């Protein structure tokens, strides 16, 4: 990754324009050609640096209900429980963590009823309590990583 890539990634994280030629707008701002922008994006995708280039939606404003869940899973049952939890497409992230609660996952469903049903099903299916920690207030969600443009 060179300086141009870093500038492209920083720009892409802020978002492209909603005009017919967004990559041309971007190219002009960065002082490079549109062809360069397109080729570099393709390369950054192939290198795996870009996970996804697309719509970044605000899930609460899209009407989705979500929560962060934690479970205390015995070491020997981690694979089995992970498989059951991950089977739901509403489970978007799941991490094994080093704490009393060792399995932490987020559930985002299209209604509160669906959300609660999923948590109940996981509890019934695994026999392990699911602790739900819904948001009281969002202070920030901005997953952007500043890349050094000097190197």
């Amino acid at each position, binding site marked *: 990754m060179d300086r141009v890539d870093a500038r492209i990634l920083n720009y892409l994280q802020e978002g492209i324009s909603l005009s017919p030629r967004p990559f041309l707008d971007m190219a002009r701002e960065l002082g490079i050609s549109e062809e360069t922008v*397109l080729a570099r994006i393709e390369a950054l995708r192939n290198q795996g640096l870009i996970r996804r280039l697309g719509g970044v939606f605000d899930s609460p404003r899209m009407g989705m209900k979500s929560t962060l869940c934690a479970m205390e899973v015995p070491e020997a049952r981690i694979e089995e429980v992970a498989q059951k939890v991950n089977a739901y497409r509403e489970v978007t992230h799941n991490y094994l963590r080093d704490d009393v609660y060792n399995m932490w996952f987020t559930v985002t469903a299209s209604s509160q009823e669906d959300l609660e049903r999923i948590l109940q099903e996981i509890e019934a299916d695994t026999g392990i309590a699911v602790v739900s*920690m819904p948001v009281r207030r969002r202070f920030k969600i901005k997953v952007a990583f500043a890349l050094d443009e000097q190197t």
Partner: protein
Amino acid sequence: MNRRDMVDRVVKELQGDLPAVSRPYLAVAERTGLSEQEVISVLDELREKGMLKRIGAVLRHQKAGYDANAMVVWKVPEEDMDRVGSLMAACPLVSHCYWRETPPGWPYNLFTMVHARSRRELQAAIRELSRRSGIDEYRVIESVRELKKTSVQYR
């Protein structure tokens, strides 16, 4: 096609990948049966309503050099939540900052995700957040293994 169908189709398409071509919204139009102008107008509307934050890139942060990450949870008195939450949200290394309802026995009510380029930078950032906020009861909960990571499906 009514507006609702148009919105559904555009959302469905845009939760996937946008092609890196000269006219990407025309490519979306061709896949959804809308015109390029309609696609852009739907996106404009969603953005105005705050439903669409942006059309942009989500990086694999480990590959971008940010491979030291932790969930840090803080015990913050409710009356102090405004100040502490805003202070932590202002830190560029903090990507998520949420006040959550927590169960009995779990006193840490402010959840942050902190990302850094090294463990040293991560630990320094956490100490700095603690020092500036005055919150010294916290836990650093590191991830041992990623079990799943996908995107929300809206439609």
